[in-house]
């Protein structure tokens, strides 16, 4: 598997660490309550198809990426810097 790092270009998967679904970007407010925090920390969908998850280019530029891929075909359709995703949402 290869990931198109926006900074470094197409790189082998071994340069990256996997973190999980990109919902980890959406940290709740401290007082959001137990349900919101449980969902944020523990509850994940298990999609068969397109998904977005976080990868850390630790053996490369150190960027956190939101990678779009398909869990069925294994196709990687894109990667965006997490900071840009957050910036766009703000």
């Amino acid at each position, binding site marked *: *598997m*290869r990931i198109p790092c926006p900074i470094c270009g*197409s790189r*082998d*998967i071994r340069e990256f*660490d996997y*973190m999980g679904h990109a919902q*980890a*970007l959406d*940290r*709740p407010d*401290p*007082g*959001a309550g*137990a349900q919101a*925090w449980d969902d944020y*920390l523990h509850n994940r969908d298990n999609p068969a198809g397109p998904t977005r998850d*976080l990868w*850390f280019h*630790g053996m490369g530029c*150190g*960027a*956190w990426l939101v990678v779009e891929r398909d869990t069925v*075909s*294994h*196709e*990687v359709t894109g990667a965006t*810097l*997490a*900071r840009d995703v*957050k*910036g766009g949402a*703000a």
Partner: protein
Amino acid sequence: MRLDKPGQIDRTQPLSFTFDGREYSGFAGDTLASALIASNVRVVGRSFKYHRPRGVFTAGSEEPNALVTIGQGAAAEPNLRATTSELCEGLVARSQNRWPSLDYDLLALNDLFAPFLGAGFYYKTFMWPAKLWERLYEPFIRRAAGLGALSGAPNADHYEKAYAHCDLLVIGAGPAGLMAALAAGRAGLDVILADEDVRTGGRLNAERIEVDGRPGADWAETVTDELRGMGNVRIMTRTTVTGAYDGGTYGALERLSPEVAARTGAPRECFWRIATRRAILAAGALERPVAFRNNDRPGVMMAGALRAYVNRWAVSPGKTVTVFGNTDDAHRTAADLLAAGVHVAALIDARPEAGTDLPVRFYAGAQVVNAHGRGGLEAISIATLSGIDKVQTDCLAMSGGWNPTLHLTCHMNGRPDWSPALAAFVSRDGAVPGLLTAGACRGDFSTHGCLAGGLAAAKAVLKDLGKRARATDLPVAEDAPYRISPLWAVPGKGRAWLDFQNDVTVKDVKLAATENYSSVEHMKRYTTQGMAPDQGKNSNVNALAVLADATGRGIPETGTTTYRPPYVPVPIAALGAGAQGAGFAPQRFTTSHDLSVEMGAPMVEAGLWYRPGWFPREGEKTWRQSCDREVGMVREAVGVCDVSTLGKIDVQGPDAPAFLDLLYTNMFSTLKVGRARYGLMLREDGHVMDDGTTARLGAHHYLMTTTTAAAGQVMKHMEFVHQCLAPQMDVSFISVTEQWAQFAVAGPKSRDLLNGILDDPVDGDSFPFMACGAVSVMGVAGRLFRISFSGEHAYEVAVPARYGDSLFRLLVDRAGELGGGAYGMEALNVLRIEKGFITHAEIHGRTTAFDIGMERMVSAKKDCIGKAMAARPGLSGPDREQLVGLVPTGAVKKLTAGAHLFDAGAEAVRKNDQGYITSAAFSPTLGHFMALGFLKDGRARHGEEIRMVDHVRQIEARCRVVDPVFFDPEGGRARG
């Protein structure tokens, strides 16, 4: 025997080699198999189960019979295919699976018991009684099973792994692959052309086929020369592409030529990971055998292989050859033999309508029903309409048609389609993204079809990548139609082999069907068909055709088993190249490493780092003696210890204070410049991640330290918090762990020692406890931190790493003059346990700030990572196991880490478990053992007597629960 005709061998270069101890010779260009055939060696191995004598069967990597061990001693490598092993001077090869010798093999007795050894034999026989399994059955099976044997000695050979990148990977350098590479290369693509043979050309080397009016091999050589001249094309011969993986990544195994591999330090094999934008599979096709009685006799071989031996290597495995087939390839084989001057005793074509102009005895609509001759083929029986004919022959070439080599197209779960016209499976387009097929591997069996297919595939790739194709003419070549009348198994008595390597016969597959193993995957596992090193390359399609017949289904309904990587066996040594011995993991050395080794310190691993355990002095016989002395030195004089391995992260920017407030449970925005503070970091789930001191060097400039073990994890966490949670913060940080050498100088005389090397001496006012700042160390700009991990008056002094070695030597030297010296990890550990300071033994991932008594460090004034979840019920309270100290009170004075704690009168079983010990050591300061551990509601139980049981080491001790700070609980020594 060697034929009197040219071939692709160099008769001016004779090579001598041995097989089973006997000397033979061949020529440069030979494989071990062709050289053995030239030397009239017919039996080259014994079969797996029945130990039947076997001869060379194919001319490629699909070889099921001619598996040999090559090399001697530790370098001996088993299960190498003689058909792909290049001959070299002095090669030493041995046959396998026989004892005591190839001619007299005792286990050949198995063949007599064949009626009892059918499919599922092991499952049916070695069942009861169960107690015999371990002592009798398994050892027996293990001795009898397996093909070659490893030497058992460490492998001294070199292997490598490497990466390559290209626009187009062409797999196979036959006519289709060459044509594709040529068109893509001329258009300027970065091309890798890989082929498992030692030369390009594929079947053109094995056939008498003309391309553009000249011998096919010559055409291949001309094209190869042009490709070699292109800077953008790389030809990798001896390289088998073994697997197709996600994202255009392919695995490939390169065998280096024996001459190259023999050079000092040169690798024997290299495993490549090739990342490519597009790939063209031009892997050709594999000929399949026909199952008939005793079709495994030495001398029976594949027709295409026989043509390769005759045409390429100028050898013939027989003097009187017969040919049996169901396509025109049988006729082509007979014609090649006649052209080479080899006597053809009979040509048998299973197709009733077939005819021939060749001057040979011809049988149409006939089948070979038996092969005679125990040690090697002597005659065959042919069933005709009028009865059985027996023909004397020492070699039978057989051809049951061709199976496209579509394995790679199925590596990503693709399934092939059945083509009734070809009586074979063909790949489905798009099965592997970015991979096209061309030539025989997609069912185009004629030379013209291969050339045209290769060109078309290259043009499709060029168009796809937006490149313009240059004019490339399609060479003229034969375009004979492929006419096959399927023939899988000749009916009749006796055993007819499907899988030669694993000794699976038609009977076994039928038995499996009878016993209801009718799914092809079940049949495979029940009979072991296709499970040998050749992975069923010769047998899969035939076996499932027999299964389809036995179960009354069609072949498409029966389906195939799954093709998985690797296409050929890949040595673990190649996959894991470089990752053994000292190269298994990177090694990180501190600047004090050399002196520590000079001083005789044993270096212990701490993550990737190496740190000194202790510094033995004359007269000290045990590590404890050294450790106790070093602890005493620090408590009474001064000790020096390298702490450079702790992670050092430089944090700068206007938002640095707010960023650290978010990371740590406690406040860093309120820390004064020139001061350091201990910080605690949680994971978002509320458990402790790491701890360490952070110094504020300026309003917007901090230097934080992490533990040695968690440095990488903390850095990644900080990147996450910044990039994913708080990208609006204007803060930058970078690891400076390797840029600074940092030494702890600890003990009552530490300031005396430091003032001897600092250009401006420090005192209690200028450098109070937890002060930090820039200093000049004998003219070198450094940093000083008054922090203590020992509980003593202590400092850490840092200089740029290039001065580390000289500073450490100086510090150790001066410490010696003050009655101190260097101390190692053992003393460091004792010192911190005496003070109740935690490490990752305590913050092991399951402990909370509450557990370690630091819940008050979670600031109420601000949010921080982990704060919300740390407040969950269950992460604090009396049910939690809390950090305590323990001292022995009974007759047994030793406490051990890992031991569990129980109430004094309770049985030491799991349901009574009250906690466990995380760190234990003998304290020379206190004169007895001490331990840190976690105990249920421990803070409320100080003074209680409990029971420690170490089930592993069989140690049991009574101990008392105490405060985890054993020494100087007021902390006066560090502040003073």
